């Protein structure tokens, strides 16, 4: 499809870009005490973007802009997911960033990048979209300029990100060298039509996985994550843990279904394109990722760091499902991301709002919170147990689908290792609940939270509870979205 025709499928992105520019201009016109208005403007822009995205539901797959990007239901799913997560983050951030209005502009820019990541179809576009997300993320991580930790986080993120992108680009150059194509489907066809050296293909694959793995925090490309999560402002940390990760997953899925494996026309069966053992590699990395994440989380004393390692572990669970390359597994990952969004945001929201009251981010600071702020503590308990994957909470259903996909593909050892990891994770999640309810701290004064805080808490709590008992709409949405652009 040529550029002009493509525009009609690009309305959400165009609107978002326009909204971004308007937000910058409006920000310049506002007085300091009015700057919070930018946040509401950004929220409105996102809301309308989501509205446009919902209108793309069940769209017929097509390639846009000469094959640089595609539009298909899977892309729409991830676009909605990332846009919603950013929308939530906007409200998440309002209490802490009332005057820093550029912050919201940066969030909008990342959303644009993430939405592009959801629909990339070209090696160049992958780099471009990921760099757009990456560059803005570096700024966001260092947003608390007065805090040296924040600056350190930002610098580490930049250096690590640059190195990873470099590795990935190196991998891309191999692919380009082998096939002479940058378009993913041209590459797929080239791979199918001629036999290539599997060693070089595998090396290229590993290099690319390194680049993508950095975005979704796969071991051993995860090193940046704990430091960045700890150093970045909490709303930004929450944002990193869901939005860019989901977008990274989208790219990985896109990459798998187009280059590593081919998908049948009905989108149900995946067949490997080249004999490179990509599945085994991903499975091993998944096990490493979740094991390292969980074991490291055990030892953490700082709750944000614990959540950072827990997010590595969760990336591992999702990778585990992705490794089996079935339509169920992709569906399970998509469902899990939705669930993960609510429970993880919820946990971060509690951490974010409680830190000023508790004076510390140490887990021990939460001692006796159950008696000081019952609603918050109960909600935190729900999020923790949901992250562990206990019924009847949303996290259980999410994990259930992940493991079901793995077991159905008969990767039993992988599933067993995953379950063992879940058991380990119970320890550190339950520990937080334990100190909140079973121990009493020195300070027993009640912690009061504003109605804004309560409202947002409920936004996270209710889906976590409801999706644990009634999840069919979401899973059927994910099933509907398993409709790829196949060249």
């Amino acid at each position, binding site marked *: 499809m040529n550029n002009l025709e493509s525009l009609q499928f690009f309305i959400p992105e165009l609107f978002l870009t326009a909204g971004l520019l308007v937000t910058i201009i409006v920000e310049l016109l506002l007085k300091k005490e009015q700057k919070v208005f930018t946040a509401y403007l950004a929220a409105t822009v996102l809301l309308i973007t989501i509205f446009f995205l919902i209108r793309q539901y069940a769209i017929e797959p097509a390639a846009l802009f000469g094959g640089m990007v595609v539009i298909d239901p899977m892309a729409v799913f991830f676009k909605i997911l990332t846009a919603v997560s950013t929308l939530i983050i906007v409200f998440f951030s309002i209490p802490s960033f009332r005057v820093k209005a550029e912050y919201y502009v940066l969030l909008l820019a990342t959303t644009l990048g993430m939405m592009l990541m959801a629909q990339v179809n070209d090696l160049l576009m992958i780099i471009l979209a990921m760099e757009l997300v990456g560059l803005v993320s570096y700024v966001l991580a260092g947003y608390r300029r007065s805090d040296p930790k924040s600056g350190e986080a930002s610098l580490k993120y930049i250096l690590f990100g640059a190195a990873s992108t470099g590795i990935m680009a190196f991998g891309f150059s191999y692919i380009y060298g082998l096939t002479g194509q940058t378009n993913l489907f041209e590459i797929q066809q080239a791979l199918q039509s001629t036999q290539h050296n599997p060693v070089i293909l595998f090396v290229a694959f*590993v290099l690319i996985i390194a680049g993508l793995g950095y975005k979704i925090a796969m071991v051993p490309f995860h*090193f*940046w994550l704990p430091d960045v999560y700890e150093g970045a402002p909490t709303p930004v940390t929450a944002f990193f843990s869901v939005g860019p990760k989901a977008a990274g997953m989208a790219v990985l899925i896109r990459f798998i279904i187009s280059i590593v494996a081919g998908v049948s026309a009905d989108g149900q069966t995946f067949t490997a394109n080249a004999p490179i053992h990509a599945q085994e590699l991903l499975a091993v990395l998944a096990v490493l990722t979740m094991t390292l994440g969980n074991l490291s989380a*055990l030892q953490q004393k700082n709750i944000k760091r614990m959540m950072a390692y827990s997010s590595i572990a969760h990336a591992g669970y999702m990778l585990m499902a992705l490794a089996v390359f079935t339509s169920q597994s992709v569906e399970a990952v998509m469902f899990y991301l939705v669930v993960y969004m609510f429970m993880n945001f919820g946990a971060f929201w509690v951490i974010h709002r409680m830190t000023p009251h508790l004076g510390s981010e140490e887990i021990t600071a939460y001692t006796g919170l159950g008696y000081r702020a019952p609603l918050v503590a109960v909600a935190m308990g729900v999020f923790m147990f949901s992250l562990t994957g206990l019924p009847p909470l949303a996290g259980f259903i999410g994990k*259930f689908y992940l493991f079901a996909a793995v077991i159905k593909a008969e990767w039993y050892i992988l599933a067993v290792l995953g379950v063992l990891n879940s058991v380990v994770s119970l320890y550190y999640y339950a520990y937080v609940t334990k100190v909140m309810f079973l121990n009493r701290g020195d300070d027993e004064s009640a912690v009061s939270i504003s109605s804004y805080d309560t409202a947002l808490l409920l936004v996270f709590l209710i889906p976590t509870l409801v999706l644990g008992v009634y999840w*069919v709409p979401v899973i059927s949405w994910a099933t509907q979205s398993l409709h790829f652009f196949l060249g």
Partner: protein
Amino acid sequence: MITQALIIWLLPLLAFTIQIFVGKRLPRKGDWVSVSAIGISFMLSIMLMIQMFMAYDPEFAVTAAMPWIETGNFAIPLGIRLDNLAIIMLMVVTTVSFLVHVYSMGYMAGDQYYNRFFAYLSLFSFSMLGLVLWDNLFGIYMMWELVGICSYLLIGFYFTKDSAANAGKKAFITNRIGDFGFLIGLLIVFTTIGSFNFSAIHEGVSSGLLSGGLLTAAGVLLFAGAVGKSAQFPLHVWLPDAMEGPTPVSALIHAATMVAAGVYLMARLSFMLSFDAMLVVAYIGGFTAIFAATIAITQNDIKRVLAYSTVSQLGYMIMALGVGSYMAGFFHLVTHAMFKAGLFLGSGSVIHAMHHSMHKLHLHEDPNDLRLMGGFKSKMPVTYATFLIFTLALSGIPFFSGFLSKDAILGGTLAFAMSQHNPIHFLLPVFGFTAAMITAFYMFRLVIRTFYGKPVRPEIYEHIHESPKQMTVPLMVLAALSIFIVYTLPSFNPTGAAGGWFDHLIQHPHSAVSAQLGHDVLHIDHETEHLAHISGIIISILVAGLGILLAFFIYYWKKADHTRIAQSIRPLYLLSFNKYYFDEIYQATFVRGLLAWNDLLNWFDAKIIDGIVNLSATVTRVFSAVSGLFDLHIVDGLVNGLANVTSLFGNGLRKIQTGQVQNYILGALLGTVLIIIISLI
């Protein structure tokens, strides 16, 4: 209609959510939220009733379902079923619940946890309505547990009082026993038929997927759930204690609706009960009816008398379902819900008055005690008049609703006994009629000692006042609903429900078991039925009259001193007064047994297990000393087990995270290279 039903169902949930989060901050502590929610549900139920009357079809049913759980070959749809049974039950629940909500605004006024009380009431209404609406056993089971939790919360509402907290726990634990049976029954049904849906179960049983002994077992196990919830013998012990909860709760949950859930469940499932299962149901019901009635005679706490009466009446309903009088059982459920809720609310009114009077006098005696009352007739005319109507209805006096339903049950049992070749089944009508007489006796004992005669304690009597409007109006409404004509229209026959709308709309569902066996398991011919009905009317009027006369004879005219009578049959009296020592027996057997078992396990753990562990440790230590190679440190490390190893790993992993970004990048690069090298080798 489905939308209407959904609104009816979900409004109380909405009210609960609002109440629990912001109730305290709302004006009037938010009671209007709950009351208006249930009020709207009530109106919508009336509209459903009207739609039902427009159809006026015994087979009337609307169902709707949407997918809920779907994974591969396993699916549970989320479905509701609106048939005559469900609509009438909705009507009963919303009516009583609405009236109790209104009544509570007066009764609970000024309570510290006023908003929480209404929140619980709303949650209960939601779960009870859900229980009525669901078209599958799984959904019913969920709601079943939810009503159980609400009941637990409300019994223990005055949780600072030990007895209330204990009663709550007792109710919860006793119900667990029954629910365990329910769960197993549920699983039997699901594994054999593969669905929880009623129509699917019907088909499955008809086609013989579930048959023979397993069918009987499933029926009895599902009945076990009803035994727990409807407080049937031997799990009846929790209901009288549940009277520790606020009186409106007793009226709503422990008289009218939740305890009737067991009966409702059995009515829903009556198509799948085999003949043997029905006999179990009938005998447990019949025995409970007479057993509880004999306890009620000697109790002095006004609410306990009513509680045992409830247990007894629930026994009637269960017995009716057991003998196949489906309509009679459900009919009694409806009429009983109205007049028993009325009785509880009436007793609440009395207790409320007693409480205030004692409060003024700074007395610390039990406001529930019958022995402190007497002569309240003139002080509380509305309460008295309505209470009398409810009592007449409960005693089965013609022109009141109770007569119609009780007579239908007694006639049903008689017909059942006459149609069976085994004469032992005449026990059932004998239980029934005896219990009817005792019921009339103890109810009039209650009325006479409360409202008639001279005041026993004049100083308390002085300060007794009629209750406020919020409390008396519901009583009058319920009294109106206890008149026979409400249930017999369009016929005006006071002696039977036949020809009335209820009789027309509620008809026995086609038994799936009969279809399986090829003949009707319970065939009662028309003649027998007619004969049984006529003789039932005569005998029941006679026994009821006898009971009332006896009550007046002893307590009003005082022709015989009741203490002397009690003295002369002292062992029997004590047996009844102490509720046949059931609590003590359970305490001695189950509770003690469990504790003893616990001790045994404890001992086993302390002596044997620890012994083995110690032994192994010693052996290890000896071994290590002998070999000289194992150092104690390693042995301990191994013994301490996986946890330490895990945390050790964690510690090691933490060291990787140096904080130096150059190390990180190096790590990532090395990782990449390592992956490539390892996989290429």
